[in-house]
């Protein structure tokens, strides 16, 4: 099983690495946000899937990362993307310290509403403080260097579908590995224990509130790093990134992929990006269809795409049982 997971992960990375020449420019550009979203969602799902805490404010950290990228490249004129990623993580942490200190005291709907409220506050801040943040205009994110290389000879698209694509793939893979370690650590176990039964966890020595707080910080750092990765292709840090509907979209992506599985958020990011592109090409009412898909997932496959194989197997087994026993057994 463990070997299987490793093989699947390696195969996925290899396939993504080989994809750009096969897919061509347009489809490769389409794939780019998958890495940024994938990283942000790994963070979201540490809280959601492992901690049982559904944040409706995660987009504020994605936005914080994007604005950090804008400040570092545009205001400070530092072009190194490594510096951008570090600054994004730091910005995410700085924002999460006060927000998390408050939110980690609550669970369930209270946690959800509180994170939503902080997300809205942060959006207003970005929107209203025109002098600092550019208000509704946002802030420009300039093209960074990767590992000190400028790639001057490449135009913007060639840079994005070439070096930037592979760089983001590598960052996403490394951060996925890091998250894999975290969820399988004593800390990860404590986080799952408090999700299932906080009272019992406390009696076993788990510092429940501290555990939630630390998870919140890690989650925010991942969100912000993902946000910085997303901001380079668009070249813009925009207040709408922090808008609450974006937080909703992040939760939707996680549900789509399956919050109960480690790879669920990564698959969710990929599936969402492809689904959105497809629906947008079909109809201007794509949001309506996206809503219908969400409803369908919650009703028919609450474990998301990752839960689909198990669901199908269970259905098949049930059908076979019914076929084997033509007369239904009387209810007990």
């Amino acid at each position: 099983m463990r070997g299987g997971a490793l093989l699947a992960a390696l195969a996925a990375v290899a396939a993504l690495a080989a994809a750009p020449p096969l897919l061509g420019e347009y489809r490769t550009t389409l794939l780019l946000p998958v890495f940024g979203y994938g990283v942000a969602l790994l963070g979201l799902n540490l809280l959601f899937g492992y901690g049982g805490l559904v944040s409706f404010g995660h987009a504020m950290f994605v936005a914080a990362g994007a604005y950090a990228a804008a400040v570092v490249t545009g205001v400070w004129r530092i072009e190194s993307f490594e510096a951008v990623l570090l600054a994004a993580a730091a910005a995410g942490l700085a924002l999460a310290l006060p927000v998390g200190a408050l939110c980690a005291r609550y669970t369930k709907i209270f946690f959800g509403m509180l994170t939503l409220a902080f997300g809205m506050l942060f959006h207003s801040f970005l929107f209203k403080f025109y002098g600092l943040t550019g208000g509704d205009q946002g802030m420009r994110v300039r093209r960074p260097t990767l590992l000190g290389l400028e790639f001057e000879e490449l135009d913007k698209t060639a840079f994005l579908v070439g070096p930037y694509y592979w760089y983001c793939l590598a960052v996403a893979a490394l951060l996925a590995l890091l998250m894999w370690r975290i969820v399988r650590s004593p800390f990860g176990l404590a986080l799952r224990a408090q999700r299932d039964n906080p009272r019992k966890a406390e009696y076993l020595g788990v510092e429940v509130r501290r555990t939630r707080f630390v998870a919140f910080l890690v989650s925010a750092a991942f969100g912000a790093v993902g946000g910085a990765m997303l901001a380079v292709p668009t070249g813009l840090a925009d207040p709408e990134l922090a808008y609450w509907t974006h937080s909703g979209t992040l939760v939707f992506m996680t549900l789509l992929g399956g919050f109960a599985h480690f790879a669920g958020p990564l698959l969710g990011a990929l599936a969402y990006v492809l689904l959105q592109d497809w629906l947008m090409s079909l109809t201007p009412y794509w949001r309506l269809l996206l809503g219908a898909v969400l409803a369908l997932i919650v009703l028919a496959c609450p474990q998301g795409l990752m839960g689909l194989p198990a669901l199908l197997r269970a259905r098949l087994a049930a059908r076979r049982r019914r076929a084997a026993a033509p007369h239904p057994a009387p209810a007990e």
Partner: protein
Amino acid sequence: MSPPLLETYRVGRRYGDFVALRDVTLRVHPGETVAIVGPNGAGKTTLVNVLTGLLRPSEGWVRFLGSDIAGAGPVRLAQLGMARAFQLVQVFPELTAAETIAVGALAQAGRGRRMLASLGADRALRARVEEVAAVFGLGPVLHRPARELSQGQKKLLDVASAFALRPTVILLDEPTSGVATADKHGIMATLTEAARRAGVQALLLVEHDIDLVETYATRVVGLRGGEVLADLPVRAFFADEEVTAALVGRRPARGAQG
């Protein structure tokens, strides 16, 4: 006599106007198995909650190993060496039995906060988990999620995870409730054996089954209406007909049950 492990002095606890505990003074010494008995609503669970630092007493004080623990909270007490199992069985539904025991074992080893250490590669942890599981006969279900276990297995797992803390004192609130009469002795025998092996110095249990109390307890504390009516060595307790009648009803003849 050695100093008490756990001690309360004139503890009172109110819920609003309702007095659930009044003037409770008691001591638990090393080597003792103290049974708390009394009718429903006598305040037994409230007393356990006060003793485990979950509830702050309205009056009086509680000490564990000499330090005041009023309202200290469960995490602090787990660190100090006090463990507890609940009246209503508590498990982590999605965690396996091994993971459940590991939660306690990691806290006890002071390694519960580590973020990058791999659980899978931790041999010492695995050995400890298997050792605890073996004592409670949970070896065969070690890798099953707790929600799939039988009620009896859940109960054992609840207690096993508490034992993984290597506690000095363990409090068990009705460890045999919801278990078939025939299995009660088995569970109690497992528990006392586990306690002996784990180096638990004192056991405190709330128990309705007086047959079990008589077999396993060394001392009996009788509560009624939140007050201590009797605090006697087990023989003296059962020899006093007035006390037994008031606290545990008429005593059935031995062997008439089960």
